[in-house]
């Protein structure tokens, strides 16, 4: 029976009527191109959520087969074995075995294999074969395998593994139709799948599986005639003890310069757009509360946050490119000793680097660390990494207070200060991690055992899709939390209004003014005025909100709104501005982070510890910065 006949037969067997949707789950080793396959299968029909009860990211999409049948695709976390070692891998195992609470067991398991690297995935294939659920093996990146002169006997492989084998190139959408046909064909066997009798394999069982995998590989695969030598050559530079570290520092430094410099034209454009919008709305609407809400609250508030989207996109672009290129694992290798010295796992580098974008995905990414103590340590320090939400705050203060001048003729002073703030976050994270390991926990960490994938040219479509997905998540945050916070602060700043015949700006009489004045004495030693104190309160919702809050506070107070920075430069001393920067390096100004920590650790204990230590650190740091700056005459 030829494949299309098979598909028709399946459709006919289902009674001609629209057949029940098929549920397929993607399984594979890390770096097997599983995400690219998910994108190739589902296109933009994707939904990102969480699994019920756990915080593992759940990616589901769907496609319509040529015969009109709906196939939903679940992208499971990457794994080397069904013997799960982390919460992510537990999800994969339980989903494959049909044990996952709240999930319908998949009809078909689709195993995605990197055709150029079959050894480990072959053992996983044998594990899946023994489970006995309907499965399909996709030999992905078959183009690279062919180029290397690697020959795979797919027919023999299918017999050995008792599952259909298709060859695919996910990034070029090659072999996808055939894969869909096989998924449909295998789904017909779903009802007769054996009961779940899986148990964890022993070391002896693993050795036996390895021998079996080795035998199958010898029988079905001819080693490449032109093996990849590029990876080895590049590694001899990128993993070199001196050159490798040099490249790593250049990459990281370039990333921060790019975030600061490349985004500038786009940010100027966005700024101008929101200002024009505010002016248009201001002219169209009659004076009053509604106009104030829309121009001062919504447009000024959200505009001053959305404007930083270019920086977030550039940062994620770097992270995703480095990940897809295969450099992330190398960076983890280079940094393992430093991380290990601070009591962190080499793999903690990935959650911590993600925390440069946002602590929330960073804290969620700590699930790649199996050991609970290693994970908790990483979670505790992740918010110290400079997240993208700090960028708006840093940018605002730096461009207002630090002169636009060159250092040593090439580096911008502003960029240098920016880099310094990043470094302060990173170093403090390492010191805190070290202290946590010394004070709270002594003893060994998890083994550092990581595959270094072959280098691959990132696929532009996949990179674009992933960057857009991250940008969308950021904007959703800006659109929900931030907008509602902007309206709340506008309310706090507007009501109650100033009494008749009052002297001074109206905001002095509002709730925000009252709160700001109430906590200001505590913050006076670190140089905060009451407007800054007010900005910290809505700033708890998200760090970037402080920018909108300052904008609203000063806009409502009647200061010059056209350039918030200029207004701040006028009203703050340099010492206060520097103390504000220091505060934002350390302070736990993000309720969402604390909420995620609660969820990840399943206890209020850790978010409370995090809040206390970070606030303490922020206060002490700001105090030192402010008092030093005042002593040097910047007060």
């Amino acid at each position, binding site marked *: 029976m030829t494949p299309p006949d098979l598909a028709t037969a399946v459709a006919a067997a289902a009674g001609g009527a629209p057949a029940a949707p098929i549920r397929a789950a993607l399984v594979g080793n890390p770096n097997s191109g599983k995400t690219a396959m998910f994108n190739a299968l589902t296109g933009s029909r994707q939904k990102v959520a969480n699994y019920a009860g756990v915080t593992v990211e759940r990616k589901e999409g769907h496609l319509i087969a040529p015969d009109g049948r709906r196939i939903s695709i679940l992208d499971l976390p990457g794994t*080397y*074995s069904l*013997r799960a*070692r982390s919460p992510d891998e537990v999800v994969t195992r339980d989903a494959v075995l049909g044990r996952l609470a709240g999930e319908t067991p998949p009809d078909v398991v689709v195993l995605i294999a990197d055709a150029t*690297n079959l*050894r*480990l995935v072959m*053992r996983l294939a044998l594990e899946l074969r023994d489970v006995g659920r309907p499965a399909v093996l996709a030999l992905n990146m078959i183009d690279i395998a062919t180029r290397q002169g690697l020959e795979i006997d797919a027919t023999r492989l299918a017999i050995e593994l008792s599952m259909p084998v298709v060859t695919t190139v996910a990034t070029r959408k090659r072999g996808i139709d055939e894969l869909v046909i096989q998924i449909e064909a295998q789904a017909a066997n779903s009802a007769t799948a054996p009961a779940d009798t899986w148990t964890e*394999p*022993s*070391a002896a069982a*693993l*050795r036996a599986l*390895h021998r079996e995998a*080795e035998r199958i590989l010898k029988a079905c695969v001819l*080693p490449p005639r032109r*093996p990849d030598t590029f*990876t*080895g050559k590049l*590694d*001899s530079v990128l*993993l*070199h*003890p*001196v050159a*490798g*570290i040099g490249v790593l520092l250049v990459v990281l430094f370039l990333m921060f310069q790019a975030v600061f410099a490349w985004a500038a034209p786009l940010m100027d454009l966005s700024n101008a757009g929101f200002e024009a919008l505010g002016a248009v709305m201001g002219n169209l609407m009659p004076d009053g509360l509604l106009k104030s809400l829309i121009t001062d609250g919504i447009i000024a508030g959200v505009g001053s946050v959305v404007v930083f989207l270019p920086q977030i996109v550039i940062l994620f672009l770097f992270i995703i490119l480095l990940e897809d290129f295969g450099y992330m*694992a190398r960076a*983890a*290798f*280079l940094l*393992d*000793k*430093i991380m*290990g*010295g601070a009591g962190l796992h*080499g793999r903690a580098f990935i959650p911590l680097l993600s925390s440069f974008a946002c602590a929330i995905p960073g804290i969620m990414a700590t699930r790649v660390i199996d*050991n609970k103590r290693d994970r908790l340590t990483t979670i505790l320090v992740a918010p110290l990494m400079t997240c993208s939400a700090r960028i708006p705050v840093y940018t605002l203060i730096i461009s207002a207070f630090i002169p636009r001048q060159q250092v040593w003729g090439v580096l911008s002073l502003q960029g240098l200060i920016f880099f310094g703030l990043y470094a302060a976050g990173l170093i403090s994270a390492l010191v805190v991690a070290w202290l946590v390991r010394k004070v709270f926990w*002594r*003893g*060994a*960490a*998890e*083994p*550092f*055992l*990581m*595959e*270094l*994938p*072959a280098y691959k040219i990132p696929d532009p479509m996949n990179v674009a899709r992933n960057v857009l997905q991250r940008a969308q998540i950021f904007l959703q945050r800006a659109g929900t939390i931030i907008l509602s916070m902007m309206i709340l602060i506008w309310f706090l700043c507007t009501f109650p209004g100033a009494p008749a015949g009052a002297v001074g700006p109206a905001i002095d009489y509002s709730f925000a003014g009252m709160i700001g004045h109430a906590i200001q004495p505590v913050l006076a030693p670190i140089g905060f005025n009451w407007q800054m104190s007010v900005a910290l309160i809505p700033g708890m919702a998200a760090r970037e909100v402080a920018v909108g809050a300052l904008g609203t506070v000063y806009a409502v107070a009647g200061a010059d709104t056209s350039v918030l920075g200029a207004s701040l430069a006028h009203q703050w001393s340099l010492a206060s501005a520097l103390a504000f920067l220091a505060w934002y390096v350390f302070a736990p100004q993000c309720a969402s982070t604390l909420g995620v920590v609660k969820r990840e650790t399943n206890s209020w204990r850790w978010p409370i510890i995090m809040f206390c230590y970070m606030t303490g650190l922020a206060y002490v740091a700001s105090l030192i910065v402010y008092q030093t700056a005042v002593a040097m005459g910047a007060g």
Partner: protein
Amino acid sequence: MDPVRRIADTDLDGPLETITLVSLADGRRGFSGYIASVDAHAPVPGGLAAHELERRLLEMGFVEGARIEILHEGFIGRDPICVKLDDMRVALRRRDARGVMVRPDAAQ
């Protein structure tokens, strides 16, 4: 010459054809051979149980008979190491590699 290398040399140059196994943890850059055994070995007291580390090593492809070569060493204390394991590259710390016993190539 470092002590580890000297021990290996002495043993291999000796008149008796005894097979000397060297722990992967003691190999230097360029060290190569075949994995002779993967033993349960607890890296540090209080850490991962020995049999768990053994299974993780097996799952990553550190299995008897596999071809192994140390490609790169970290810049602090030559740790961690990057090894070529059959046709894959794997990074690991020396203390976790302690239980991987290698039959070195004759030239070494």
